[in-house]
């Protein structure tokens, strides 16, 4: 197994894959973390600050549904969509590249 690992390590495409996938994953992770902390902050810490105060306002004049409810709902939906976005890119672009790298490394290693 070791010699295949060496071959993969030596392939510049592997580092390209790693770089792309890492940046994509971390970007999405930061979006998720920021949203969770924003939500916790607005609810638990600073409900009176500007970034949270409008959460208590109804979305329509005289209505009962507030912005906070809509934001929580949308955030949950967006999280699901982000997971879907990640898996789409991972299953197409990243997996194709990965399979090519592994196949070449195995061939070069004579397997």
């Amino acid at each position, binding site marked *: 197994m070791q010699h295949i690992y060496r071959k993969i390590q030596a392939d510049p495409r*592997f580092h390209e894959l*790693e770089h792309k996938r890492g940046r994509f994953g971390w970007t999405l992770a930061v979006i*998720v973390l920021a949203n969770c902390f924003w939500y916790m902050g607005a*609810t638990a*810490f600073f409900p009176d600050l500007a970034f949270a105060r409008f959460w208590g306002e109804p979305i329509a004049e005289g209505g*009962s549904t507030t912005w906070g*409810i809509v934001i*929580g709902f949308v955030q949950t939906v967006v999280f699901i969509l*982000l997971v879907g976005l990640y898996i789409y890119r991972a299953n197409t672009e990243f997996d194709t590249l990965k399979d090519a790298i*592994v196949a070449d490394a195995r061939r070069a290693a004579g397997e």
Partner: protein
Amino acid sequence: MSLNARLLALLIGAGLPLASLAETPAPERDLNTIAIGMFLVFVMISLGITFWAARRTRSTSDFLAAGGRISGFQNGLAITGDWVSSAALMGIAALIYSTGFDGLIYSVVPFGAWPLMMFLMADRLRNLGKYTIADIVSVRFSRIPMRTLISLSSLVFVVGYLIVQMVGAGTLISNLFGIDYTAAQVIIGILIVLYVAFGGMIATTYVQLVKAVLLLSGASFICFAALFHFDWSVDGLYASAISNHPQGMKIMQPGGLLTDPISAFSCGLMLMLGGAAMPHVLMRFFTVPDARQARLSVFYAASFIGYFYLLTFIIGYAAIAMVMKDPRFLDANGLITGGANMAAIHLSEAVGGSFFLGFISAVAFATIVAVVAGLTIAGASAISHDLYANIFRHGKATDHQVVKVSRISAVCLGAFGVVLGIAFKDQNIAYMITIPFTVSSSVFFPILFLSMYWRGLTTRGAVAGGAVGLGLGVILLFLGPTIWGEILGHGEGIFPYKYPALFTIIASFFTMIVVSKLDDSPRARRERAEFDDQFVRSQTGVGAEAPAQH
């Protein structure tokens, strides 16, 4: 019990609100025949599954990882089953019933664990693991110290979680079904031993899957029947809730009901990071054939779990709108019978009558049995694969022996669960759910994360940091407001926060980094050098465990 104590963890499918049922005993119910009948149907189906699974369970791989042949969709549903329990349904509904909008924080924030798991961990976990989370770190670290730490921490996790589930279950079941507490414990014990000892991971997975479908259907029915009642007007439902609730419009607004922001933050962090590193959930990643199916599992799990959390946006407020002013569900003082935890259950009766109440009660029972089965197999794998096969027998145990030890461990854990459930009857054990989450967020998460992302981590650093996380967690919990303050009667805690996770996570990461940096032993140098190989394997799946061939 304060809001903070309650909030927490339940949310994640743990047993907290259930546990707090113990404090507000509901009136004894008559034997609920509809519920019992439906539960018997579930038992028949699940035992049928177990019988079928037992015939397919031969090797260790079958027993502990379902032979790696579960599909991403099935596994996603099973993970949903591990994560979302009826406790989550009842707990979140109870929080919204009492505190309105602020209760929703426990729908929205813990869900963040799922995207994080997908973006940072899912592929790597599958590519590095085999049966347990100790396998992941054994790829480049020294086997004996790492496995000892992780398997013992897993057992602490499992037992802590088990006590909460068993006590909560006994109380809930005796309330809903009108059967005796001890009898409920024994029934749960017998069922999980049958599932796990005979059917192993295959049976556990399918039972979990059936339960997830039942729970999602039940919650969907409650949600849509409630909306139907308000002519499909969400705004109308909210308006009715506002007019019923003494806090009025405040239930739709963030209100700062969380009085201790540091604890709330600590709790949120614990739920997110701890939720991403629970052994009984992570071991599900090893039941699928490859990283692609592992990703699919997370996608389906995130979709189902997210859907469930979205339902709580309606269910919680529907309980206010339909239960809070309905005399059928109120006691002489005008308070909800059985406490706020019963809000979702009463709502099911309000929207679907006694037949649907029976269905939901049966689902609640099935859910607890399934979650306990998941915990039991996680504990059994820590004993048989980590402690017995790898530490005690140095990897020389035969397949047959490992399966046998797994089965025996499952029986012992089941019996142990029943004994603990009976021993802790009527005690306030709600705080105990903090133990497993502190362990997973301060021991498992830092070790897994650093071992996958940081070349510099060494065995010495990981073990030192894990031990600090575990030890400090136990000490701070003991000195905190719940145990030192309330249970030991000192009024307040020496350590002021209910959730030590914020501090133990930082201490654990810090210790791991410092000790690893100082570690210049030959072993440490070798472990750093092996990072490259581990990295390639985690990224490509070359050399990963393949599904069993039959």
